[in-house]
């Protein structure tokens, strides 16, 4: 089996883990060195698509991941502008993946980082993520496809990398155009140039190694292929080790975890939505950024769906709120009624998309 594991996946996983620990030490929020959902949400806040004051910052990490992938894809001649695989459907799935992630408070990558930080709530999220992947795999086995992409003009492939690069230049040149959190997770960030650089290295490695959080479990279940899962394991191991070395590790617990809630049912269901949606998309939120960097227009549309999903999550109070301590009393956070309803709407939408794009209903129609 070891022959079937690409060492580059292990290296990429280890570098992502180390980058997450490093960026946290340099100012990023706790257990949030890297989080695609959180950072896309912060960008939605910085560009005033939502007005939740604690989560507004134009995160250079998102720009760096996409551009790192673009550079690596260009160098290795893998950059290919392609699109046309059900973009509107992908937009909708991307939005619900984001809502599920913000109910849990993290994308699959942050889930692993939280696990390495000793947050037991993230292990509940992992169970939900696995359940969602099993549902997605069921439909893949029933012939689910969003149909093929086609080669398109180069401009389509460069659209998202170029827009992000332009926004980042404006952010550096005229930061006052953007919203900045004064407190909360959005107010905590590592130096921008360093965040960009570290993320570009991670983006390049993720492009080359095909690192994907959902791909690991999916391939293990479907093909007994543990290649991508090894990257998942490497991230966990390095983050855990990094936290121990920096004396940040205080054992495993569900309580008082950074930017995390202990409403376990919603940790579970939020990540079920993420796992299922990510399997339908063909990759986790990180992978969507990397594919968008390689010129995949459908993944670029998915990222835009995630951005809009993040704005909706905060405009309509769908996102989870973290556990907190007020006047010495521990208050369990969690999800408002609107968020719970959104998760169930998400399940209904994914079920409809899964059924209508697989062979299940077609067989019955015969």
């Amino acid at each position: 089996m070891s022959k079937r594991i690409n060492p580059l996946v292990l290296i990429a996983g280890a570098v992502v883990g180390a980058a997450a620990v490093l960026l946290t030490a340099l100012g990023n929020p706790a257990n949030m060195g890297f989080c695609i959902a959180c950072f896309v949400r912060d960008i939605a806040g910085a560009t005033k698509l939502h007005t939740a004051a604690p989560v507004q910052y134009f995160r250079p990490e998102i720009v760096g991941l996409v551009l790192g992938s673009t550079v690596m894809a260009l160098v290795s001649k893998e950059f290919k502008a392609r699109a046309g695989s059900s973009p509107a459907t992908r937009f909708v799935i991307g939005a619900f993946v984001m809502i599920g992630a913000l109910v849990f408070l993290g994308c699959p990558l942050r889930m692993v980082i939280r696990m390495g930080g000793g947050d037991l709530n993230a292990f509940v999220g992992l169970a939900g993520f696995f359940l969602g992947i099993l549902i997605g795999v069921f439909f893949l086995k029933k012939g689910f496809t969003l149909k093929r992409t086609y080669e398109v003009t180069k401009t389509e492939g460069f659209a998202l990398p170029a827009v992000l690069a332009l926004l980042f230049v404006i952010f550096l040149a005229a930061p006052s155009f953007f919203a900045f959190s004064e407190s909360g997770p959005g107010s905590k960030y590592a130096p921008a140039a360093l965040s960009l650089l570290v993320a570009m290295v991670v983006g390049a490695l993720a492009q080359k190694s095909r690192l994907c959080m959902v791909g690991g479990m999916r391939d293990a279940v479907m093909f007994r292929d543990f290649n991508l899962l090894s990257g998942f394991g490497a991230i966990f191991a390095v983050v855990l080790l990094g936290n121990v070395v920096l004396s940040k590790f205080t054992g495993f617990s569900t309580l008082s975890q950074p930017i995390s809630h202990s409403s376990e049912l919603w940790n579970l269901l939020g990540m079920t939505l993420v796992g299922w949606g990510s399997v339908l998309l063909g990759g986790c939120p990180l992978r969507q950024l990397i594919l968008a960097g390689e010129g995949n227009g459908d993944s670029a549309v998915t990222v835009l769906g995630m951005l809009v999903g993040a704005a909706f999550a905060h405009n309509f109070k769908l996102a989870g709120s973290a556990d907190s301590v007020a006047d010495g009393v521990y208050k369990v956070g969690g999800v408002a009624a609107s968020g719970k309803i959104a998760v169930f709407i998400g399940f209904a939408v994914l079920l409809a998309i899964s059924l209508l794009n697989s062979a299940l209903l077609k067989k019955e129609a015969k």
Partner: protein
Amino acid sequence: MIDARGQSCPIPVVMVQEAVKKGNSPAELQVKVDAMVCVENITRYAASQGYAVTVDEADGEYTLTLKK
């Protein structure tokens, strides 16, 4: 010839898996894909099923020949 061009991960591998199961591990299979990641994924799966794989590239498209 299985045409898996333009399909998202892991659908090309699912298509090969289906063909292997339906044909009761046929001695030879051909698959067409248009991304290196699919070449890698199918090669890993084929190796696990005891196939040797050869790859021909033309105009950014890859034809994989799986042989037992």
